[in-house]
């Protein structure tokens, strides 16, 4: 196969005695090497591609809840709804008048919304500095809430966005009834709830 016969004719000249043809003891190992490398490739690919990664998640401790002085302008509420729809509003909790809708897409989605928010918060409130790494961090506070119909994938996606946009202060919170109502009402404030608030 991989060998070229170079012995050139052979026999003939000597005549006389009939000798048993000497067979080479060499075995062609090429197919075996082929097979071995194929298997190596297979094992390498299957082991390295199958490794699951993990992300860290910390929940606040209930007893040690430190109340920081929070300005309303630092807040952004992100609500995850069904069918990958993301709702957000930037005022304090329960004030639903400027609820907007966006998606998870890389451009024009929630990532851009958070980046714009960062820019505004940096301008109005300055930036924090990490004591250890001396790295500047944004002061934006992201409140993440899961509305009816949100999938686990959405939760992982928004946590990933927190990492991408370098938002250090975020928390997963329970949704407030009025927020769920507004989402059910397609982002518009229900008239009854407004009158209740005014009383």
């Amino acid at each position: 196969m991989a060998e070229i016969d170079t012995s050139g004719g052979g026999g003939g000249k000597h005549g006389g005695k009939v000798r048993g043809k000497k067979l080479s003891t060499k075995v062609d190992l090429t197919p075996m090497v082929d097979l071995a490398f194929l298997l190596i490739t297979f094992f390498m690919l299957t082991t390295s591609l199958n490794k699951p990664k993990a992300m860290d998640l910390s929940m606040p401790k209930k007893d040690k809840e430190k109340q920081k002085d929070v300005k309303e302008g630092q807040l952004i509420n992100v609500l995850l709804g069904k069918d990958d729809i993301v709702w957000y509003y930037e005022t304090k909790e329960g004030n639903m008048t400027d609820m907007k809708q966006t998606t998870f897409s890389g451009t024009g989605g929630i990532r851009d919304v958070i980046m714009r928010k960062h820019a505004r918060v940096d301008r109005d409130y300055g930036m924090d500095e990490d004591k250890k790494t001396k790295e500047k961090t944004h002061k934006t506070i992201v409140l993440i809430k899961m509305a009816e119909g949100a999938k686990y994938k959405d939760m992982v996606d928004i946590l990933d966005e927190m990492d991408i946009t370098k938002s250090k202060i975020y928390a997963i919170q329970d949704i407030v009834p009025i927020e769920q109502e507004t989402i059910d009402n397609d982002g518009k404030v229900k008239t009854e709830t407004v009158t209740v608030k005014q009383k």
Partner: protein
Amino acid sequence: MPKVKIPRKSTSVDMTAMCDVSFLLLTFFILTSKFKPTEPVAIDLPNSRSSIQVNDAIKISVDKNGKAYINYPSATFRLKTLEKMGEYYKDKYPQLTQLTDKQKNNFAQVETFGFDSKSNIPELLSKKPDEISKMSTGIPMDSLDNQLGDWIQAGRYADVDINHPTANGAIRIAIKGDKQTDVKAVQQVIKTLTDNDIHTFNLITTLAGGSTSATADQK
């Protein structure tokens, strides 16, 4: 003038050395690779760009229907956990203290399990490990009967006995949810963890595809 004959040399290369090396590599990869553990349900992991490796952890799987299963790192760990379950929660699950060695052994063979500890456990554990895995119905974790929390606690006690961890070296807890799981089920698991004073844990994901991470890096 006689022709100068260039001696024809054989073009064959000795393959023995190459064969040796390739089989050595092959053996290495086969021995180091860990096969995917058999799971009662297939879980389609969500993508993320984080890249933390989690090796030894108590993994809580949450399937599409919101049922929870638990996976301990090794067979000895599972045996120890079962022992601890009997020790700490014997009033709640009296059945778990009355298991035979065979049944305990069967339990240790099941990598990912999920069943109601108040159902007929001895009968279930008399079956073959494969069948036990298939019959998993999920561990109850509602607030009235939170058995998942007990299993996690028992796992942490077992970890203390086996690995003698220092305060910050305790075993990690990881949540393995399906993409399509209702987030409420995952939040219930998280609530169970925080109720048991576990505030830092991991979410298991797979690495996102190249395109998304590339756009992420530009930002």
